[in-house]
């Protein structure tokens, strides 16, 4: 019996390697697992940043584990693992719209100490708002996105039209140029109309730019905003019917093949349009999204953040890793190498960065205004209820009034009527 126990102990020691005990700040055996969706572009750029972190923090090893780039799949993965209470990772990349949900569920840790309030001033306000749950920060913004308007600079110039400031201006500009060009293959304005999250983003941009929203705001203006979506297709005829199935990539392809005047999309498409061989190279301009007269432009905030599972045993080390990944130097490297836009405001005045990517100057005021989607743990429920209804309006199946009524009915069922005021808080 004694011998057997000794053998077991010996084997266990072998398996563990020569692990020295102790609570030193950097235990040589600390492995931080970093889960995130695959970034587009050269994976070596992020790896190099992580290697540099390891070099500066001897004893810590960072292991990257990639998830599919589909954000639905990532959300599913995180929810399943975090709900179990023992997440097999120490750092995760979260979409801006998940932070409230994950924080409410108690899945991710407060990062109040990782990024003290004074330092948050250096970041754009939108992402900080999206990452703050009940007065505490739960995620640190990693890179930022916002809806923008792309336009064909050459065609607008040819017809003496300025980039539109309001939605009615955009309709007139599109109609005028389409009438003059007489090209049946040219569309006026393309946007994401498929039944998915992208449609909710654009619908919110239109509604917010009309001084309303999808729930608590002015009902008449909300209906007017939804009606505008439908009318671009059916009344003004500046948008092809196929927009009802369009996502970011399919609209980018239409615009990129020179077949649309205006497009709503995220900033990522810009560098693809400027590539060698692109049909619209040098012909594209970027502007803030239009609004309805009397209201400001209201781009929706996108982007990703870094968060830590509450179950991680290495809160302090992973906090240092977050500070490193969101430092000006690391953000500059990611912006230059992969084209992801920094969340730190002062980088937009950084000559070495802006010199290489002049677009950042145009994006700065847009990111400053970027408005988070409803900041509530109920967001995904809300969005799932909205998607089919807004889509039904776009394809002419429902009137805006019917759609808004249906959304209300569904949400009442999901959250229970007594919870409603809490659920819609801040919408």
């Amino acid at each position, binding site marked *: 019996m004694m011998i057997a126990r000794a053998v077991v102990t010996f084997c266990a020691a072998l398996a563990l390697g020569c692990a020295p005990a102790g609570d030193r700040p950097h235990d040589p055996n600390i492995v931080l697992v970093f889960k995130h969706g695959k970034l587009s572009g050269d994976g070596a750029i992020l790896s190099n940043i992580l290697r540099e972190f390891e070099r500066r923090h001897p004893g810590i090893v960072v292991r990257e584990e990639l998830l599919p780039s589909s954000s*639905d799949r990532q*959300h*599913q993965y995180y*929810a399943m693992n975090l*709900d179990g209470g023992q997440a097999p990772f120490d750092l995760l990349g979260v979409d801006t719209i998940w932070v409230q*949900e994950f924080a*409410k*569920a*108690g899945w991710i840790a407060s990062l109040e100490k990782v990024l003290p309030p004074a330092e948050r001033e250096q970041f754009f306000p939108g992402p900080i708002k999206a990452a703050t749950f009940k007065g505490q920060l739960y995620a640190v913004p990693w890179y930022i996105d916002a809806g923008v308007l792309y336009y064909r600079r050459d065609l607008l110039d040819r017809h003496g039209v300025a980039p539109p400031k309001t939605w009615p201006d955009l309709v007139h500009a599109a109609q005028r140029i389409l009438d003059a060009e007489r090209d049946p*293959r040219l569309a006026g304005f393309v946007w994401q*109309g*498929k*039944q*998915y999250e992208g449609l909710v983003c654009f619908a919110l941009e239109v509604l917010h730019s009309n001084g309303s929203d999808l729930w608590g705001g002015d009902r008449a203006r909300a209906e007017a905003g939804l009606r505008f979506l439908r009318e671009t297709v059916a009344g003004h005829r500046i948008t*092809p*019917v*196929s*927009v*009802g*199935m*369009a996502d970011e990539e*399919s609209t980018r392809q*239409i615009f990129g093949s020179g*077949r649309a005047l205006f497009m709503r999309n995220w900033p990522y498409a810009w560098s693809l349009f400027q590539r060698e061989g692109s049909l619209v190279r040098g012909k594209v301009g970027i502007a803030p999204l239009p609004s309805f007269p009397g209201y400001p432009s209201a781009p929706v905030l996108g982007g990703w953040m870094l968060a830590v599972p509450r179950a991680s045993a290495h809160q302090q080390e992973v906090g240092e890793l977050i500070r490193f990944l969101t430092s000006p130097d690391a953000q500059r490297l990611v912006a230059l190498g992969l084209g992801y836009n920094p969340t730190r405001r002062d980088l937009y005045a950084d000559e070495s960065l802006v010199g290489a990517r002049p677009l950042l100057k145009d994006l700065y005021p847009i990111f400053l205004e970027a408005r988070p989607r409803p900041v509530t*743990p109920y967001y*995904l*429920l809300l969005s*799932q209820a909205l*998607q*089919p*209804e807004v*889509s*039904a*309006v*776009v*394809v002419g*199946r*429902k009137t805006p009034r019917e759609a808004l009524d*249906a959304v209300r009915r*569904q949400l009442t*069922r*999901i959250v229970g009527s007594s919870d409603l005021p809490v659920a819609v808080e801040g919408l």
Partner: protein
Amino acid sequence: MTERPSIGASHSTSGIRLSERTWGYLLASPAFLLVGLVAVAPIAAALWLSLHRRLPVFGVEEFVGLWNYVQLWSDDRFWAACRTTLYFTALSVAAELLLGFGLALLLDGLTSGTGGSPRWAQGMIVVPWAIPTVVSAQIWAWLFQPDFGLLNYLLHQVRLITRPIDWLANPDWAIHAAIVMDVWKTAPFAALLLLAGLKTVPRDLYAAARVDGAGAWQQFRHITLPLLMPVVVIVLIFRTMDAVRVFDAVYVLTGGGPGNSTETLSIYAYKTLFQTLQFGYGSTLATAMFLIVAALSSLYLLLLRRHLQETT
């Protein structure tokens, strides 16, 4: 139980006499256990979960009895998904069976005509079945593209249409686009099963029928069809079960849109369970789907039994 010599008794070394039936159960118990673990237990767990209101994000976990089922009854979205699913199932399974039958007869004719079996033809036919659904759905999404998709181009070339069809953006067309894709993908599966069935039909029956002066149609109607009936029912069961649970094909193609016109039960359950994490209500949807599949399968088996009783 009548006393008779049993295998169990003769092999019993410990002196315990076990009846043949008991031995049978004993020997089958690992299989029962396996089925219990991988099939019955999860179904039971889902049933149990469907009696709860469980929203992990909000820390809600309460037993609510049949409350979820009451909700289900008044959930328009559920009934719409039911209609969409049954419509999809009826049309796609019918088309797959007909097309599969045609393909099987064609392949059978090819093989019996030349004497040898043209493996290349059989191999080619299963290609759509072999491609992962997510991949073929993406391919079809491009084919359905209204402006530069191949399908509209071909239809335009043969002058069947004058304006491009918005296959996926039109709520009336979208479900049919999904059906076309599903038929393309799974008709070969039906064809293979039916071809295997055709091979088992004794050739001399046809010879005898020809001697009696039966034409091709009469041979098909009175020999091929009745003898193939069990295979047809198996094809129907397989395909119906798959079609009722259809998920990836439609999800990749349309995401359930536009305006929920292609949202099947699986897609609704997926969105409820995994996107919005309503585990209780999502399990209720899954249970409802399970009951629908079980009811349809039982119906087929009942029909098959009646058919077999009539023919014997």
